[in-house]
């Protein structure tokens, strides 16, 4: 069965090319053109850990309503090199289309040296097995047999025509327009006016007048060339829709950065690491920002972003900043977080609010530096020696990335402990259209912070930074505040903060710290701990449990499942520490069938649920090939599991190139 009912304003487009050749901007121009036409997009980016030369590709899904996941099928594959065609031709659905460069038809698959041996073997085997030649011609013949429409685009010719038109004799100065040519050719096939491409080009290249000029000329040439050739109408279409509301085209790491600024983060430390550094760089490029009217006495707001010598310095510098009453954070990924654990323990011991944004990528070790995985949940929960309270919050979409980046500072300051915000690479590096982010629902809660030194405690009882209290939380003064002198130490300490190894004090101090986790569990509302998406009828056929970036694919997969008569409910866990044990227990104890869906090998959330609730989730759908989970994979695998739960206890998803 085809999963797509109508292919007008409902399609998936793919473009690929060598890293560094401008594929990013192609996808950007394509996406922006679609958004300008009133459509919604969801774009995912796949790339090697490499700067120039290796293959990267983008998939952009376009729809007339908001979309939140990737799908497996490709409607139109746009290529200008041989490698993209070789790698992805198979992903194009029957009846879809391929745009290709006719001068490459004789390219031998075995001679593309950036292709891995096993891929060469697989593809040549497939072609030869069907009686095709092991080159691009063979691939195109295979595509034709699969009813795929082929669109040759003579890029070289268009580039020389463009050069001629603008009076440029050096072709190499014009050749980069190939990216926009590919987009324009795509729009010609899909039927969206070239004017949208031109507007997108203008928006993206901004002040670079000459670049805009050559791209626009080339775009029109290629657009008209395709339009002038008669071919049967293409099976998928784009058409502008009326959309008066402004929308935001945002990547996960940008949403986090906005959240941090709104949430009051004024110092960010980081050591370069994929996929976390984008956020820090974005923050640095917005280090000065405007404040709302009424706060202009500060002139402007600002954030100090410090690139440190390593992640050990990143976390400890953020902690030092936090001691002054500054909202401070650091952003990293698994390998960097590994280096942060000792510092985090110190913050736990000294009850310092510090925020760690943990972008999850494929591990262990260097792992898959540019690919997606949710392999660090248990690590985030247990990192560092000894026991101390920590907050762990995970985001599932762009809006959550934004709001959670605000909330996590409130949690950190209210409960005076390290707070980890988990974001998957699949969110960090995906771009999508959303309604504009708004600070309207955002509130700043700094907990028991003392910033005002007008009521000094000197002379009477000395200020006790670690005063024993009912809720475990002590009034927190900041460095430099008169009358509130305090001491910190990584050693066990007294209420004042001096080293204290007394066994009785140890019990009281340990209990005080750990009590904060209970306080947090009690105070944080359920609405911030998890999302529950009910089934359409009163009793669901299946309960899906998941977290993080799988959210979008699951929600959209559920819609498809419903059409098949499978009514699913979905429990999206957000707060992992303190864990909402009672609510999860209550929800899951009523389930007919529970499926745990995670993008890791072992089902780390399922382990956490078992640990906390004693509910063992038998059925798991897991993906750990480094590629994000798709809506179609959710649909297929949940369907198989519901039909035969016993035969499908552990399904491993494999889609993605």
């Amino acid at each position, binding site marked *: 069965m085809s999963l797509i009912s109508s292919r007008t304003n409902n399609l998936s487009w793919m473009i690929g090319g060598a890293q560094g050749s401008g594929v990013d901007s192609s996808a950007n121009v394509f996406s922006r053109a679609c958004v300008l036409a009133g459509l919604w997009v969801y774009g995912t980016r796949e790339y090697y850990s490499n700067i120039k030369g290796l293959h990267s590709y983008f998939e952009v899904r376009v729809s007339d309503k908001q979309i939140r996941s990737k799908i497996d099928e490709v409607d139109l594959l746009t290529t200008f090199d041989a490698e993209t065609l070789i790698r992805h031709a198979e992903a194009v659905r029957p009846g879809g289309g391929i745009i290709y460069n006719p001068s490459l038809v004789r390219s031998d698959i075995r001679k593309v040296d950036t292709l891995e041996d096993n891929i060469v073997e697989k593809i040549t085997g497939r072609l030869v097995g069907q009686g095709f030649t092991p080159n691009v011609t063979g691939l195109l013949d295979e595509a034709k047999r699969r009813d795929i429409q082929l669109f040759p685009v003579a890029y070289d010719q268009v580039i020389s025509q463009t050069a001629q038109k603008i009076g440029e004799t050096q072709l190499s100065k014009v050749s980069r327009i190939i990216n926009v040519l590919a987009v324009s050719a795509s729009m010609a096939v899909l039927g969206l006016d070239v004017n949208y491409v031109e507007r997108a080009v203008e928006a993206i290249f901004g002040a670079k007048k000459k670049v805009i000029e050559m791209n626009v000329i080339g775009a029109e040439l290629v657009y008209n060339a395709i339009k002038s050739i008669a071919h049967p109408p293409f099976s998928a279409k784009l058409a502008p829709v009326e959309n008066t509301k402004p929308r935001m085209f945002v990547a996960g790491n940008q949403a986090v950065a906005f959240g941090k600024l709104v949430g009051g983060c004024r*110092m960010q430390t980081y050591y370069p690491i994929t996929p976390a550094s984008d956020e820090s760089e974005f923050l640095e490029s917005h280090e000065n920002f405007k404040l709302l009217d009424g706060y202009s006495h500060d002139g402007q707001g600002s954030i100090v972003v410090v690139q440190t010598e390593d992640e050990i310095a990143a976390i400890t510098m953020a902690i030092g900043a936090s001691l002054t009453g500054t909202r401070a954070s650091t952003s990293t990924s698994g390998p960097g977080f590994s280096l942060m654990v000792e510092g985090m323990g*110190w913050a736990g011991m000294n009850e310092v609010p510090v925020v760690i944004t943990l972008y999850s990528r494929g591990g262990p070790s260097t792992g898959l530096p540019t690919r997606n995985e949710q392999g660090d949940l248990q690590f985030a929960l247990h990192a560092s020696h000894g026991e101390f309270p920590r907050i762990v919050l995970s985001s599932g979409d762009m809006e959550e990335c934004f709001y959670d980046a605000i909330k996590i500072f409130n949690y950190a300051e209210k409960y005076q402990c390290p707070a980890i915000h988990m974001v998957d690479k699949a969110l960090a590096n995906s771009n999508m259209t959303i309604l504009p982010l708004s600070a309207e629902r955002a509130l700043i809660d700094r907990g028991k912070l003392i910033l005002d030194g007008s009521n000094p405690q000197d002379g009477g009882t000395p200020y006790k930074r670690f005063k024993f209290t009912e809720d475990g939380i002590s009034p927190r003064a900041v460095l430099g505040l008169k009358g509130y002198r305090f001491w910190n130490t990584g050693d066990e300490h007294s209420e004042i903060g001096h080293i204290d190894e007394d066994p009785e004090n140890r019990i009281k101090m340990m209990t005080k710290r750990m009590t904060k986790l209970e306080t947090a569990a009690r105070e944080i509302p359920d609405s911030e701990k998890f999302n529950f998406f009910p089934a359409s009828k009163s009793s669901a056929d299946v309960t899906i449990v998941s977290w993080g970036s799988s959210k979008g694919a699951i929600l959209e997969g559920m819609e498809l499942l419903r059409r098949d008569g499978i009514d699913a409910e979905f429990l999206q866990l957000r707060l992992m520490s303190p864990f909402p044990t009672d609510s999860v227990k209550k929800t899951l104890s009523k389930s007919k069938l529970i499926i745990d869906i995670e993008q890791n090998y072992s089902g780390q959330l399922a382990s956490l649920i078992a640990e906390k609730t004693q509910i063992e989730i038998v059925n798991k759908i897991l993906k750990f090939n480094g590629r994000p989970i798709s809506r179609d994979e959710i649909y297929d695998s949940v369907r198989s599991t519901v039909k035969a739960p016993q035969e499908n206890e552990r399904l491993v998803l494999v889609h993605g190139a």
Partner: protein
Amino acid sequence: MALKLADVKTDLHNDWCPGCGDFGIEASVQMALTEIPVDINRVVIFSGIGCHGKIVHWTNTFGIHTLHGRLMPFAQGAKLANPDLEVIAIGGDGDGYGIGAGHFMHAGRRNIDMTYIVHDNQVYGLTKGQASPTQGLGEKTKSLPEPNINSAVNPIMLALASGYTFISRSYAFDSRHLKETIKRAIAHRGLALVDVLQPCPTYNDINTKDWYGGEDRRDEKNRPIPRCYDIEKTTGFDPTITPEMSIEEVEKKTLKVIELSKEWGDKIPIGVFYQNERVSTYEDRIADRISTYKQAYPAKQTLAGKDARPTVDLEYLSKELLIS
């Protein structure tokens, strides 16, 4: 009101070994605190891990006893978030030249306006006497099973190579010299290193108080000839590098620092080796990019109004991502 020594001491029991050089450093730091023109409420002392680390508990200022080797990033984070603080980092030789050597170096590249005092006794005291990074090759302090297999690092040269703009050395039991050096380090605008030679009476039986004092060598009147000599007093050496100096002069001075830093053994130079006033501080560099930094630094900014609403104009900020 001038502070007295009692004002800057806590009444906690001090548990360093009797005769430890740490006492000399503690006394000099505290005396310096009573003499500098700084509001004591703004002073924050950071320490690392090792015997030295407890100094913050004996001293009555904000005191942050951090992790082994990490005091510098902790301290720099606090200073950048609140440049109005007077930040003094006090570490050990294992702490700063060993496990924290990376931070030592990069702190130099930043040149944040703060002071870094290093207790340098050539051994890891708190773990019972292993060789620290400043112990010489082939030396065998008393708890080493075998002579030290590593060469010593040269803190003065390391600091110079890293970009410290104030590099000095003093001796724990020369309180007057140490106190004055610390005061000059605090007054210096930029990152100031004070490497403090100190005996460890328990584990270092080579570089003892008697050894530093030169009890083993006597002049004609049978007076000991101390090993440390004050480079500025004795030789008239001027460590200052001013903005007006020519490149050649700077070069010459820098080479002299290297030359002096290599002296060890019978003659150990102490004093200020290098004071470079040409280099901008990290705070200045931030202020070049963030014009409001010095008045509205991170710790001073208003994050929310009385209604707890954030003060940031998100609509304006996110304009570049809006498409309509």
